[in-house]
């Protein structure tokens, strides 16, 4: 049943996000720390466990796959709901600090990767 896949995804999401909330509180931070990351790892572990048990069928995978494929549309909707006006009309300092480090970071990435391969 498709709903089993969606339910496992929901279980992973909720458990992971809750871990992130508690970790944030534990660290004294007003933010979720790594919730999505925990959720992804929980989902991957669930998948492996189900595979071993032989309970992973195509219907089940379809339930997760639908949301996987909805990802790009969600991102388009997210872009359309950003506060773009404030970003482009906040004066020169905002543009300077918003743009220069980002461009610099892009060109740092290859060195970062090279460094880690040593």
């Amino acid at each position, binding site marked *: 049943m498709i709903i089993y896949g969606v339910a496992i*995804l929901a279980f*992973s999401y909720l458990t992971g996000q809750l871990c*992130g909330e508690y*970790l*944030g509180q534990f*660290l*004294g*931070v*007003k*933010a*979720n*720390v*790594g*919730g*999505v*990351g925990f*959720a*992804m*790892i929980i*989902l*991957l572990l669930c998948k492996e466990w189900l595979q071993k048990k032989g309970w992973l069928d195509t219907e089940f995978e379809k339930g*997760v*796959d639908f*949301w*996987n494929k*909805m*990802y*790009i*549309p*969600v*991102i*388009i*909707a*997210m*872009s*359309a*709901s*950003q*506060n*773009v*006006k*404030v*970003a*482009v009309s*906040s004066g020169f*300092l*905002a543009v300077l*600090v*918003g743009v220069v*480090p*980002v*461009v*610099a*970071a*892009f060109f740092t*990435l*290859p060195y*970062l*990767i090279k460094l*880690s391969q040593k």
Partner: protein
Amino acid sequence: MEIFENFIDKNGLIVGFLVIGVLAFLSEVFSKKVLKGYLPGSAIAILAGLILAYFGGVITNGEKGLSDLPFLKGVGAFGGSMFRDFTIVATAMGASYLTMKKAGWLGLVSLLFGIVFFFVFGVALAYVWGIRDAASLCTIGAGSCTYIVGPVTGAALGASSEVIALSIAIGVLKAILVTILTPLLAKKIGLNNPAAAMAFGGLMGTNSGVSAGLAATDPALVPYGAVTATFYTGLGCLLCPSIFYLVLDFFL
């Protein structure tokens, strides 16, 4: 007219599905017919979303782009953090746990490096600009991490509301720029494998920018970028108002 308005209001999220579907279709056509596939349809759609968000902001004076228009509220719900995180988690289904574990160290290093890099860069630029008090500098530096770290730090340090607004603007600008530049620069900087995507997520950190940028580059890389980027905002909120502020205060 009133019936219609109520109807749209009641079915907001479904209207969002339709609007985004149409936008994605038009972008795909534009990508194929006009640009001959030079930029993928998803990249055009994300860019079109940002442009529409700008006009939404101009028309309504609101903060949520296109979704501030009453009949497009559903677009905001569809693109909100709940759906965003839920679908990102779903992308993990296609990822390999082993690869993530192997590149975990690189992810951690780039995460810490990324936060320090953006913070120091942001503070230095603001300092050159002539800002001298530690709380304002720290808030601006935090803003160049993400648009959440900025205001959280500013509120913790008691920065002025102008500086907090500035830090949000910087963070939003970063997210937009990462979105646009990632598909354009990916090839040049070797962003074409899971390990590189994990380093990229940690370095850039802006959740929305990284996830949108990688989606437009290669959707298979999204889970790897997201798994590190998700720690960035939390760590930034932890480090900026505490250790970074103390160090900054010591030097000034």
